[in-house]
């Protein structure tokens, strides 16, 4: 019974109550994102969201070797949050994760809530929190922007992996020592996160060169009248 799980949990790894719990968490968080994200949407957002989601879907298919016998791929939580904001970015990642599960059998149906929570919500939120905390450096210079994007990418990957560890601690199906699991999961994702950080920085840098106005993180805040229009 082996299945392909590209950074996605399969059915049977978490018990039913935990799967239901994180299904509820994911739904509530997505509802909040749909409500709060409206204020971030302007003429540029919808096309960018579509193109970015498709880019992330394609990149998640592209595993590259990161350690002997281990591969990794871009997952894109920080990239989505930096370009679209934390709410719309989370919605984009959720579309990717749901389509992967429903049409490509990539990530279990019962684990969909946990996968959306980790990849679309937790990683995106933590990546954005780091980027927001360091926004003044991102606004100061191009190198600052690249550095912030790199760190946000790294942190978002580790945060998404840490989400899985928490879920497993609550309702993992196998009797596995948690300490060892933390070391293995966080350790390997710290290495993958370096690649995530580099690609996030390269992508943000490329967009900053041609259309810096598309980068949500460094855009000036809209005037109140404009935001509510």
């Amino acid at each position: 019974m082996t299945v392909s799980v590209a950074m996605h949990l399969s059915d049977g790894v978490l018990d039913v109550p935990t799967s239901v719990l994180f299904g509820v968490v994911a739904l509530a968080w997505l509802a909040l994102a749909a409500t709060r994200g409206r204020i971030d949407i302007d003429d540029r957002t919808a096309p960018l969201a579509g193109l970015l989601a498709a880019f992330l879907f394609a990149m998640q298919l592209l595993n590259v070797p990161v350690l002997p016998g281990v591969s990794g791929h871009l997952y894109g939580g920080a990239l989505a949050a930096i370009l679209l904001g934390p709410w719309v970015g989370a919605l984009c990642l959720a579309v990717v994760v749901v389509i992967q599960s429903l049409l490509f059998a990539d990530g279990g149906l019962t684990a969909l809530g946990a996968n959306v929570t980790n990849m679309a919500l937790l990683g995106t939120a933590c990546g954005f929190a780091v980027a927001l905390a360091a926004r003044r450096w991102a606004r100061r210079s191009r190198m600052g922007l690249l550095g912030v994007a790199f760190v946000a990418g790294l942190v978002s990957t580790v945060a998404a992996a840490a989400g899985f560890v928490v879920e497993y601690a609550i309702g993992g199906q196998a009797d596995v020592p948690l300490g060892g699991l933390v070391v293995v999961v966080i350790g390997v994702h710290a290495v993958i996160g370096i690649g995530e950080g580099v690609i996030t920085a390269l992508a943000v840098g490329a967009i900053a060169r041609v259309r810096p106005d598309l980068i949500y993180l460094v855009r000036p805040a809209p005037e109140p009248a404009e935001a509510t229009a």
Partner: protein
Amino acid sequence: MIARQSRRLALVATVGIAVLAVGMSAFASSAPDGLEWALRDGCTSAPSGEFVGQCPAQHERDHVLVEYALGNTGLAAGAGAALVLLLAWGGVALLRKRGARE
């Protein structure tokens, strides 16, 4: 000027995504990814495909829709990317429309 630049950027991005999805996915590493590898740490794979030992993946089950899944061919990946593009673009546009109405 900005509109023309946007169209050019969108075109370049779409072509890039199509190349990534349809062409490059065939060259992806078949090694387990980080989470998959970590979940299998402590188990060995029996000839039947089942995991033997003690690891988080030992109770893993096949996806219930696996027989209907589109698979991972370049064409399926391209179709998936196109679908994701339409859903994300359409969904965000719909949110904006609803936000403007309220």
